[in-house]
């Protein structure tokens, strides 16, 4: 099982180029997870101690308000869903819902944080990857916000 998880991690873009030794360490905090179409991986407000490497399928990040549910982003094959495990108060800010059947690797944030505390070099590697991911997400969100297809410049 451990070897299968390590192989999944090595195949996933997020861990591209990571030392095999660290991958093995991380695999100890990981497990295989499958979600049926429409099922929730996580719900807004609930404790967030995991994140997901999406191996196959897509996860829709959704938020609800009177008038309906908004999908703010979809996280697809090769991508990562979940930042809230990194910093307090460790609560999901959105609902994560499987679009189609989703195969993912679920990583235990508490376990990982402990391993990062024990080996700061692992922590640095992981933080770099997350920082890169967050930056790319931020730029994409800015582009979304510009509402470029909508009416001409406001203000």
């Amino acid at each position, binding site marked *: 099982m451990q070897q299968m998880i390590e192989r999944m991690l090595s195949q996933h873009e997020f861990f591209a180029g990571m030392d095999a030794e660290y991958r093995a360490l991380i695999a100890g905090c990981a497990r295989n997870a499958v979600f049926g179409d429409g099922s929730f991986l996580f719900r*807004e407000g609930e404790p967030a101690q995991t994140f997901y490497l999406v191996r196959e399928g897509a996860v829709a990040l959704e938020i609800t*308000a009177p008038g309906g549910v908004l999908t703010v982003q979809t996280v697809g094959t090769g991508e990562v869903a979940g930042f809230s495990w990194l910093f307090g108060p460790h609560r999901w800010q959105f609902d994560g819902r499987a679009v189609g059947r989703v195969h993912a690797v679920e990583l235990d944030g508490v376990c990982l944080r402990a391993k990062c505390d024990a080996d700061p070099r692992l922590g640095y590697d992981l933080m770099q990857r997350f920082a890169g991911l967050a930056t790319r997400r931020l730029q994409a969100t800015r582009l979304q916000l510009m509402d470029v297809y909508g009416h001409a410049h*406001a*203000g």
Partner: protein
Amino acid sequence: MRTLAEASAERPWTESPPWQVAASRPESHDTMTLELEPPAPFGFEPGQFNMLRVPGIGEVPISISGDPSRPGPVLHTIRDVGAVTHALCALRPGQRVGVRGPYGTCWPVREAEGGDVIIVAGGIGLPPLRPAIYHVLANRELYGRLVLLYGARTPSDLLFTGELAAWRSRPGVTVEVTVDTAGRDWHGGVGVVPDLIGKSAFDPRAAVAFTVGPEIMMRFAVRALLAAGVPEDRVFLSMERNMQCAGALCGHCQLGPFLLCRDGPVLGYRQLARWMSVREL
């Protein structure tokens, strides 16, 4: 000032006698303030609302947006989003509108005494908060800092801009304004309102926070307030649902166990928390 009980005991909930429009003023491209002259002395608490009726068209709840300590015309700030609000926004001085109220719970301004007051407003959420702002400014010595964090979609959607400038100039008052998107003419902040919270200077231990805006914005604002150290039982929101009788009789304004016309619209976050993220509640 009449108590709520006195006001409602005098006449059945079905009656909405006409008040005259004393003044009307556009606040933005889709929002008007109506000043309505009450036929008898009228008092209200910050956060309460009136039911405004245009005969033949309908009746809607509108928050009272004026100064509770000032006698005379009662201010209502209305955004044109449907048939009734469209008709209300078209009213001019001399015309009449049916009014009944005041209804609902109010901002806990007395509970807030002795500490900082944080006001987080989004869009049309500022009018129901303005009476609380007036109250704090009129009783300055009872409160610590007044922090107003306000956002709208674009600069042309901002309300009460003249007053924002006047408030900002007063000692002990912070006013930060932001918009989601803007062109080059705008020299102010661009970004989301909840992000202003972490950057503001206030003492969370004795602070009280009042927030009104789109529900999603309020949820993010509450998260930021809690992260900044404001205790859960010191955060208050004003919620909205379909409202028809305003008398806790018709069943429309339910939000879980709350009848918003009676138990709200102002509710504490602690009471609301478990209901806020439930889909289609």
